[in-house]
């Protein structure tokens, strides 16, 4: 028990929580935007890999760090556009299209990495974002500006969704596309926009891994974080504030299992601790399933004139 108290009293623990949460916040907001417009985006896992890779490659090639983040966002947008074309334009299965994009984006990234660095065994490194030492806020000053950006994005997305005509349009096409269309809102354009914007956030979530958390690109570095974002959106009942809470809660348990793994007398094999985040995600899905308020048109393709 004292162990647990020691862990929680250590500021380094909370620094880790916020760091682990950052890509989850960005990714979850990305999924949330897509799903609020009625489109499931299972491309997230692959888009995060692609964003991590292209963002890092740009910086490695000499671009400034924020330009790297921009490149990652553009990469996400490109795959988002493809997903929008397949699911909105052609009304294909959102499940299958998303999985296809994950496989494609991952394979392309790994291919690009191998072509760019055919012979290296140790991954080449860059100088990542520096912590915001100038900030007089205890936990936050150990983070990078990308984390600050993710935190500020939560109220921004909430404001756009609930306080602007654009947000109203997005929510409408996710709930009742027929009604939206009759109000003069273009379902196809709104959904495409939401998917592209959401996918940009997913790309940025990936770039956080290579440009802030680490300084290199590794195979399997995303390691299921994208899928966890998809689970977190359900947990958050499609609300940005709750998404932040969910990401933080999740990161809390993830950081805790890391610490328990290191500190403990290893009562359990380390893999059991690593399982916790995934078990927790499933538990969260089951717990909120009963009262989950899915956007009514989620996963339902909309074809004009067809019902």
């Amino acid at each position, binding site marked *: 028990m004292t162990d647990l108290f020691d862990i929680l009293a250590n500021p380094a623990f909370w620094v880790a929580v916020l760091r682990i949460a950052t890509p989850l916040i960005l990714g979850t907001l990305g999924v949330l935007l897509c799903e609020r417009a009625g489109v499931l985006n299972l491309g997230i896992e692959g888009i995060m890999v692609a964003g991590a890779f292209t963002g890092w490659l740009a910086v490695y090639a000499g671009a400034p760090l924020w330009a790297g983040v921009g490149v990652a966002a553009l990469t996400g947008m490109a795959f988002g556009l493809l997903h929008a074309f397949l699911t909105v334009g052609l009304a294909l299965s959102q499940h299958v299209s998303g999985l*296809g994009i994950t496989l494609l984006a991952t394979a392309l990234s790994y291919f690009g990495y191998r072509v760019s660095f055919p012979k290296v065994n140790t991954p080449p490194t860059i100088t990542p974002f520096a912590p915001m030492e100038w900030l007089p806020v205890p936990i936050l000053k150990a983070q990078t500006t990308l984390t600050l950006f993710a935190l500020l994005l939560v109220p921004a997305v909430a404001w756009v969704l609930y306080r602007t005509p654009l947000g109203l349009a997005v929510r409408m096409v996710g709930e009742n596309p027929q009604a939206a269309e009759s109000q003069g809102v273009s379902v196809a354009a709104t959904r495409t926009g939401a998917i592209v914007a959401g996918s940009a956030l997913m790309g940025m979530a990936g770039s956080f891994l290579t440009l802030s958390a680490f300084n290199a690109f590794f195979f399997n570095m995303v390691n299921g974080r994208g899928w966890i974002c998809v689970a977190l959106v359900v947990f958050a009942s499609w609300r940005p504030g709750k998404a932040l809470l969910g990401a933080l809660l999740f990161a809390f348990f993830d950081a805790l299992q890391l610490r328990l793994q290191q500190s403990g007398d290893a009562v359990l094999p380390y893999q059991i601790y690593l399982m916790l985040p995934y078990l927790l995600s499933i538990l969260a899905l089951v717990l909120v399933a009963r009262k989950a308020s899915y956007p009514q048109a989620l996963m339902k393709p909309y074809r004009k004139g067809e019902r």
Partner: protein
Amino acid sequence: MRLERRHQSSRAALVLAPIGAVAFTMAVSALLVLWAGAPVDRTYALLLQGGFGSVFAWSETLTRAIPLILTGLAATVAFKARLFNIGAEGQLFAGALAAVAVGGMHGGSGFELPPWLLFPLMMLAAAAAGALLLLGPALMKNRLGVDEVVTTLLINFIVLLGVSALLDGPMKDPSAMGWPQSVSLQSELELGKLVAQTRVHTGLVWAVSLAVMVWAIFKYTVLGFDIRAVGANARAAAFAGVPVTRTVVMVALLSGALAGLAGAIEVAGRTSYVTLDMSPGYGYTGIVIAMLAGLHPLGVIAAGVFVAGVLVGADTMSRAAGVPTYIADVIVAASLVAVLVATLLTQYRVRMK
């Protein structure tokens, strides 16, 4: 842009669509070959040769096709009923582990049962392990409305970590020089070779037989009808008196069992023990194969052999032409997207306005 349903789509178009889509993908992927600085014609020639150009190439391709056909069937059965089972990877490992748990040596002679009894027990255990793993997500979807894609995906990670823990602990082969590798199968339980001096084993007969069995289930049984009805429209099916929950349970058991068998057959036919890298994502590739085959069980055999050939050929090609093997994964993934579009075009006409 809008879509108009075609009144009729020809049989030829349905067969040609995936072939055209794959050809299109190969053409686009040529850009990646150029990026890698290799000549396109030679690279593709090497790819084909490595996958299908010799008896050895064919034997390697067919060996690789065995688990792919089985996971492809697992995806086909589930997707037909709109149960998006993305957990075949975990189910494969669960089946492989169950196989060595029943048929392994366990530091000595293993279970003292005659092989003719132990072999079916081993296969049953593997099928059951895979099936049970999918039953939970299927019921959660059916009862609580929890999206099965996310649950089956997350379970993959849990299973792989569980396998890793077991390979470090209770299931570890003490004579494996510290490698995380399970105990070996009793040698009497291993599958025989189909062709001498190659790696092709009788698992191929299993895979093809199971594909025919699944095809027969779809075509000739009430269950097959129910599966298609639930897949087309679950609510209408329930209204028409189709037992939806029972069908979903049967689909989960069948799909999970097929993926579990893929693991057992890999162990019995190829590796004889379980390691964490025994599957380079066969479970996920199975989804692509099912889609390439248009969810047709017999088409899965052809699609499985094709994808296996690309993967095997890429290894040879990579050594000779210096293009990274990941080109095979790009081709497979891009084919999936292209086939989706091509199949849609056989059913709909796109009108620009």
